[in-house]
């Protein structure tokens, strides 16, 4: 049973990293500064591919959550959501919040030297707000493996 728990846990870590990375690669190239640069065309393709991978990964997450895990025994389900996982999730959310605050501070400093549109600022903050907790959760789960 621990093998199944470890397997699902490893898959969840991988999925978190994929979701975080593809979300960043989807959002960052859509920033006006990058869109209007020489990197624009490649960035657009990268964003498109990342968006597809992100969508498929989200689908995999839903399928894994609704199909495979309910099939597993209640004991396995409990192990996958035990108090260490809950603690790691809470720490990851805290890390995400802290990262976002630091990033907003950096953006404040950057906007003193260059102009960034409101839409770009919102996109950047959203990207960090989504990716940072996912990376943090994956890191904490991996560290404890």
């Amino acid at each position, binding site marked *: 049973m*621990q093998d199944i*728990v*470890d397997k699902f846990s490893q898959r969840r870590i991988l999925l978190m990293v994929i979701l975080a990375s593809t979300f960043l690669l989807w959002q960052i190239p859509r920033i006006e500064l990058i869109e209007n640069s020489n990197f624009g065309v490649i960035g657009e393709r990268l964003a498109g591919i990342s968006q597809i991978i992100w969508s498929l990964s989200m689908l995999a997450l839903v399928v894994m959550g609704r199909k495979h895990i309910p099939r597993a025994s209640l004991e396995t389900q409990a192990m996958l959501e*035990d*108090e*260490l996982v809950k603690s790691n999730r809470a720490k990851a959310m805290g890390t995400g919040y802290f990262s976002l605050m630091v990033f907003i501070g950096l953006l404040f400093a950057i906007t003193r030297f260059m102009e960034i549109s409101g839409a770009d600022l919102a996109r950047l903050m959203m990207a960090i707000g989504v990716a940072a907790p996912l990376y943090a959760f994956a890191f904490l*789960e991996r560290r404890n493996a």
Partner: protein
Amino acid sequence: MPDHKELRNRLNGYRKEAGLTQADLAKQVHVSRKTINTVENGVFIPSTILALKLAKALNVSVEELFQLPD
């Protein structure tokens, strides 16, 4: 980094004394092997409920498993 540097736990010793692997103990208390590993290494401090379950599974008191220095 450990959650609480001063907390001493003797989970590893009692578990081995009972002839259990981390996976065996994890199954008995309904947590993952990782959780047992992190508790043994002092990385994660278990809840009161889990500490009581661990003590019961190993047939010792919670105070024997977890101690704060005087």
